[in-house]
């Protein structure tokens, strides 16, 4: 019984939140890695793209809510998501036209692109704060739980409860759908194949008649969709705050680099590696260990390896280790 209780407590506090957070990071890292593979620079504006996308979705959600449109047990934000994606996509295309296209033409060094993306980050950040303000917003509505801790306890008769939030369920399901769609697109469709060809060998792709501007355009649209979905899922699960989204940049980049920049499969793996390490290291293990160990060995402290204030240090530490020992990432990426 103690063993089962330990497993349930572990799932409740570590596994389930880890899987949800990992899916969100994976979607974010996919966007970063796609930009890296196709446009060949690290997009520092990605966190703020997520923020802008989420903001648009929140605005649409409020509008729908004010008209009384909802999805019953599901959050209204899901209904607003497609509109948010469209707006963010248009915004990304405009940014590319105004900012990045010039540097592509003059074949600027990647670092100049990175700097330009910093400028874009500034502007998007300012725009978000300007429109919705720097404060925290909660926009999840509908049913809060798929199963609450109490229901679970009654069902199983265990001491520990396992709560499953609706947002966590939605996160995992939509992440699976999005990833499946993305891989189908990249591997099966003509446009997807031309994207991969362009990423592998630009010159060869140009020779075989692939239109680079079209590839870039499609990439931005996909990235906008990924960023918006990742941002909305994160915002539903936790809450929306512009500064938090800027800070997400670090774990997202860490995920993409751990998996190997430019490698979509790696980005997903990296997302989960980072998420689980963060949760594992900042979780207070007292409860789980209390069930697992005999009474005499029961720990007196919280058994928390690092306080949650340092969760960024975890992604950073993993990033440093990967850069030191395997700079191409776990799955071989493009970058050295």
């Amino acid at each position, binding site marked *: 019984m103690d063993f089962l209780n330990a497993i349930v407590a572990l799932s409740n506090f570590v596994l389930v939140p880890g899987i949800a957070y990992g899916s969100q990071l994976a979607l974010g890292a996919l966007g970063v890695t796609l930009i890296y593979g196709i446009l060949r620079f690290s997009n520092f504006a990605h966190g703020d793209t997520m923020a802008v996308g989420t903001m648009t979705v929140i605005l649409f959600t409020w509008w729908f809510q004010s008209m009384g449109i909802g999805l019953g047990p599901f959050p209204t934000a899901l209904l607003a998501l497609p509109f948010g994606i469209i707006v963010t996509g248009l915004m990304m295309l405009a940014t590319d036209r105004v*900012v990045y296209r010039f540097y592509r033409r003059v074949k600027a060094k990647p*670092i100049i692109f990175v*700097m330009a993306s910093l400028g874009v980050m500034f502007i998007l950040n*300012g725009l978000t704060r300007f429109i919705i*303000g720097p404060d925290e917003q909660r926009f999840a509505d509908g049913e809060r739980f798929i199963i609450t801790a109490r229901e679970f306890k009654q069902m199983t008769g265990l001491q520990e409860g396992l709560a499953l939030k609706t947002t966590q369920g939605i996160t995992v399901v939509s992440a699976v759908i999005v990833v499946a769609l993305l891989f189908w697109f990249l591997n099966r469709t003509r446009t997807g194949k031309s994207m991969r060809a362009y990423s592998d060998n630009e010159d060869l792709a140009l020779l075989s008649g692939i239109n680079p501007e079209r590839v870039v355009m499609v990439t931005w649209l996909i990235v906008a969709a990924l960023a918006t979905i990742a941002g909305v899922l994160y915002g539903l699960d936790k809450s929306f705050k512009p500064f938090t989204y800027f800070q997400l940049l*670090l774990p997202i980049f860490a995920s993409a*680099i751990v998996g190997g920049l430019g490698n979509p499969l790696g980005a997903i793996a990296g997302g989960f590696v980072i998420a689980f390490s963060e949760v594992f290291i900042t979780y207070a293990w007292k409860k789980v260990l209390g069930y697992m160990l005999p009474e005499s060995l029961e720990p007196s402290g919280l058994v928390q390896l690092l306080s949650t204030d340092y969760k960024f*240090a975890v992604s950073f530490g993993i*990033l440093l280790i990967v850069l030191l020992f395997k700079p191409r990432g776990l799955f071989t990426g493009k970058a*050295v």
Partner: protein
Amino acid sequence: MNDTLKNVGLFALVGLLILWTGFSQSWNSALLILNMGLISAIMALGVNLQWGYAGLFNVGIMGFVALGGLATVIVSMPPVNDAWAAGGLRVMLGLVLGAATIVAAILAYQKVPAGRARTLAMLVILVGGFFLYRTVFDGGVMAVEAVNPAGTGYLGGLGLPILLAWPIGAVLAAGAAWIIGKTALGLRSDYLAIATLGIAEIIIAVMKNEDWLARGVKNVVGLPRPVPYEIDLQQDPAFIARAEGLGMDPVTASTLYVKFGYAVLFLIVLLILLWMAQRALHSPWGRMMRAIRDNEVAAEAMGKDVTARHLQIFILGSAICGMAGAMMTTLDGQLTPSSYQPLRFTFLIWVMVIVGGSGNNMGAVLGGFLIWFLWVQVEPIGAWLMQVITSGMSDGYWLKTHLMESAAHMRLLTMGLILLLVLRFSPRGLIPEK
């Protein structure tokens, strides 16, 4: 118009802007702009060293500046003897154990041949060392933080003159830069950017949460000063007599005198650093750096160790930022970790370097002054602009309220826009590299 004339004209323009602030607003704010302008110019010099000479992209300036600020507390505050007695040595022992763990792991990695034995050895060292470190360290921290938490609750500093903190801040920043440079240099150029972004966030997190070190978010106030206190000046008959001789009231005169004292100190540091940077730029070393920047492969073929030179210049530039950070905290007289915002301490400095002219020290200094002036003045201008835009709307209309409240965020937009415009249309900046 030749270059010298243009450059002198640009500097004269900045001087005029500051004088204009003095005449139209107040001399106190003019001197404040001058002081922060001097500090910004020093930070810009440091970043220019990294970006302009070597093409290294550092987006963690905030972290190095904050380390400089930390140095002022460690150097100048009086030691808290009770805290040292309660657990100071234990905290230090914990830190030594932590460092020893890492060194032992590195030694094991280097000495033991690769294989399962090495992995196991490293795992045992790291896990065992970590728990040992935490047991020793946590107890010490609890004891230290329990000593008069409202007043001190930290170990205090060394009680040395605060001017010593400036070079020590530089050394702290250099240490952090060494760790980052060692891992991220020699890889793709973007990696350095990501690693520096990360270290900056972590340095701030440490400073906010480690109360035993510098009181965390409880702040350390009342740092000692290298210049006299206003209140002492106001009670000094000789000073009052001199102020009255100049026709000023003693209170204003004392505030101006103090700010002017800082300005002289900062100017001395800036001039020394500028002289050194100019000498470095025109030495064989500077030429080698630019050669590496312009063509790494060719420089490597000529036998230059690109990664080692990059590490060197990255550490130097970060050290300058650290020193500027220490100077800034000295000027503020307090350390407030929550005031370190990436926008203000990383990206603003970047705008200064790019606008001033990367690769040119004079350009960086000019950018520091000019952008700092704009940064201070953009907020009133933004508020005024919003006033104009919303003048047609009735009071209390939601859009008007919203726009007026959001005027503060105009800074982000403006700085982003300036960065993009200069990067696009005038990438060489106001005073281009020769």
